[in-house]
């Protein structure tokens, strides 16, 4: 029931992901951050097997950092996406990672970009993308309302529309979502959309 989706706007890219960590019928937590900040100007939203998701994305993050230290210059978004895809492809015929990834980044010379990378190492450069059961609803919503060069307000409205659609129509829809943004000023958390907050610990 994991949902990750994203889109490219005017000078920025947004990635939204649900934040439940689930094991069969048990919800471990509802504030799990599934969008990793890969480096100063890249976001990696991932969904899939919990162990694989964290292991793989942390591995990618450390390798991206190593590149930056070795070469004194960060990887471009396209290079990071291709590197990620390459690692998935190599593991595919041995012990594949069950992780689906949306990689969003901002490069000074080409602006924002979004890459769709699925667990069998498919790589597509896209304007909008989504994974999970929620993708049925969010992709349809984005197909209807997306246009290139959306302003931040329009894009966040569209993300909210998608979240509403997922909440109304998906049978076990996740209660909380996190939205992160990447633009010329860097990658950062934009907002949370919560319906369940962790209960306050009662004081004596």
């Amino acid at each position, binding site marked *: 029931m994991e949902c990750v989706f994203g889109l490219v706007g005017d000078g920025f890219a947004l990635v939204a992901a649900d934040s439940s960590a689930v094991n069969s019928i048990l919800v471990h937590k509802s504030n799990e951050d599934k969008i990793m900040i890969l480096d100063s100007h890249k976001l990696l939203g991932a969904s899939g097997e919990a162990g694989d998701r964290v292991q793989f994305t*942390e*591995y990618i993050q*450390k*390798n991206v*950092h*190593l590149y930056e*230290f*070795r070469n*004194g210059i960060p990887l471009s978004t396209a290079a990071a996406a291709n590197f990620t895809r390459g690692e998935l492809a190599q593991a595919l015929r041995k012990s594949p990672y069950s992780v689906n990834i949306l990689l969003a980044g901002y490069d000074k010379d080409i602006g924002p970009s979004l890459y769709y990378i699925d667990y069998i190492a498919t790589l597509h450069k896209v304007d909008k993308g989504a994974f999970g059961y929620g993708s049925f609803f969010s992709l349809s919503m984005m197909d209807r309302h997306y246009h290139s060069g959306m302003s931040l307000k329009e894009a966040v409205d569209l993300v909210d529309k998608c979240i509403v659609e997922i909440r109304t129509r998906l049978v076990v829809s996740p209660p909380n979502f996190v939205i992160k943004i990447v633009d010329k000023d860097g990658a950062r958390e934009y907002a949370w959309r919560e319906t369940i907050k962790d209960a306050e610990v009662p004081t004596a």
Partner: protein
Amino acid sequence: MARYDRAITVFSPDGHLFQVEYALEAVRKGNAAVGVRGTDAIVLGVEKKSTPKLQDSRSVRKIVSLDTHIALACAGLKADARVLINRARIECQSHRLTVEDPVTVEYITRYIAGLQQKYTQSGGVRPFGLSALIVGFDPDTGVPALYQTDPSGTFSAWKANATGRNSNSMREFLEKNYKETSGQETVKLAIRALLEVVESGGKNIEIAVMTKEQGLRQLEEAEIDAIVAEIEAEKAAAEAAKKPPSKDSLV
């Protein structure tokens, strides 16, 4: 004696490892490097030998980052340095990946020194011909640290140290003039130590400052020139004060 410096795995009869000692010679021929630990910053300085006119000086960085909070400067064989620095950078990220914590300065120094030692006890290889000055802030405690390694693989922590060409003079100067400093004073102390053995001027010195908030910052040539000018002015003032009163001494 000539028979005992072929393969480094062989001790000489009087207990020397000649290859290691020759490696230390190589370090002594390398460019001067100095490190000074302050209370809130650590400063690394390196002598810049005159750059050939056609060379792009930006591609010759002598003070490098190993991680966001660790930096290294060295004296000796630069190609050997490149290999060690690469291995250290990988280890910094690997440590972060496995224990989700940045390395401490001591950990990465121990790692680099361990690597240098391995090459004094293996067949068919020669030691790394460099001594490294490793600086940084420990991630948990925020304490600044300066360590030095050498080709034998020993390492220790220092308040201030120098290596490379004329390191003895620089160390003597530091021993005489070291005191706990912070901020700009630490930078000045490092530059003063370097100026003992290097021709004055921003062209011949590379300085980088490591602070907890900003990480490693390389100083611009203009900044260095300004500080050098300050130091020269202070020196001149000190000289003038020392001179005995000129005309009134003979009464």
